[in-house]
């Protein structure tokens, strides 16, 4: 066997077909090895650091759920104060729970203070680490352990929070959405964000085979379907303006995406489930209209 070196090593304990491992791999491919990774609690943290081992070949620190942004800004401020910042990138990598729910306060603070950090949200649309509880990233109609479908419920009753635009509203010079289904797109955007001075944000869609209920070989296929059905638009925003959009020729109906996952299975069986699917299709249509995805 030849000598191999990975910034994230094999031997981590992520599930087969893990989306977080792929996302972390692409982030490191984008930023390179001169980096300090801040990792709030989540699947990625748990599976890559079974004490006394770690899968990281770069400096890495675990923060709590709620203070990923604060720890990242503290490292940046300390390095600057010691005159040792150089080209070192400080990259926060958190899940949707630590980014969109629990950690949004400290992340908002870090962006408002204008620290030179990159924050990447790996959005698998629920708290997968603790058993698939819903988060504010869970989409409409998805079944999770805290939003089960039944006689009075069609699954998660709310739409996904638009986190990317919330971060753009902080006056960030660069925010972008990306997906692990498009590796080159993701690596390019991470690189661009890391090179941009100031607080930058990348929101990556990441389908979880265990939580969403699909075969482990389909992780990337499902990620691509989300983009092809326009439920997950890929765009970049610079200084608050949308500057680039990935076009989708002939968007597919959302049923194709929903049918492939167990978490939406009830929508095809329940009476009036089709009305919920219509609502989800409307969201896709809105994305097409708003971002001009098919023009």
């Amino acid at each position: 066997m030849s000598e191999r070196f990975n910034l994230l090593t094999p031997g981590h304990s992520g599930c087969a077909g893990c989306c977080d491992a792929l996302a972390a791999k692409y982030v490191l491919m984008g930023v390179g090895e001169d980096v300090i990774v801040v990792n709030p609690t989540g699947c990625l943290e748990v599976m890559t650091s079974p004490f006394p081992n770690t899968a990281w070949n770069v400096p890495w620190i675990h923060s709590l759920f709620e203070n990923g942004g604060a720890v990242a800004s503290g490292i940046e401020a300390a390095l600057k104060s010691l005159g040792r910042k150089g080209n070192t990138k400080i990259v926060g990598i958190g899940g949707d729970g630590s980014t969109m729910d629990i950690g949004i306060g400290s992340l908002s603070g870090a962006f408002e203070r204008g620290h030179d950090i990159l924050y990447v949200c790996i959005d698998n649309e629920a708290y997968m680490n603790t058993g698939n509880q819903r988060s504010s990233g869970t989409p409409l109609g998805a079944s999770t352990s805290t939003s089960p479908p039944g006689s009075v419920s069609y699954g998660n009753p709310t739409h996904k929070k638009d986190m990317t635009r919330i971060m753009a509203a902080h006056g960030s010079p660069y925010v972008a959405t990306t997906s692990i289904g498009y590796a080159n797109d993701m690596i390019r955007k991470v690189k661009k964000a890391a090179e941009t001075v100031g607080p930058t944000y990348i929101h990556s869609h990441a389908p979880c085979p265990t939580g969403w209920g699909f075969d482990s070989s389909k992780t990337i296929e499902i990620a691509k379907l989300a983009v092809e059905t326009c439920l997950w638009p890929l765009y970049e925003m610079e200084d608050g303006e949308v500057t680039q959009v990935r076009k989708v020729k002939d968007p597919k109906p959302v049923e194709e995406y929903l049918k492939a996952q167990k978490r939406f299975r009830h929508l095809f069986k329940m009476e009036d489930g089709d009305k919920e699917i219509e609502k989800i299709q409307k969201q896709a249509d809105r994305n097409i209209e708003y971002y001009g995805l098919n023009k």
Partner: protein
Amino acid sequence: MKITNGAVCEPGTAMANKTGGWRTYMPVFDYSLCIRCGICETVCPDMSIFSDVSSADEKGRFLRKVDYDYCKGCGICANECPKGVITMTLEEK
């Protein structure tokens, strides 16, 4: 086990966990179909597919090999391969 100050871990030591034992289906390559695009290496979540440096062709493109010590058999490589080079076959131990 001794816990250091700050619970510091040495880098890359997760390599001690040979996760290949999780596997049920193993990826098997048919190199006669391979176009050396490297997609399988990019999409592997376990960094278990690597370039075989000795296989470089005139354009410097490599064939890929699997490190069965770590491959969990998820099958993403077989699903994403544009040429159907990789088949997942039931592993008998």
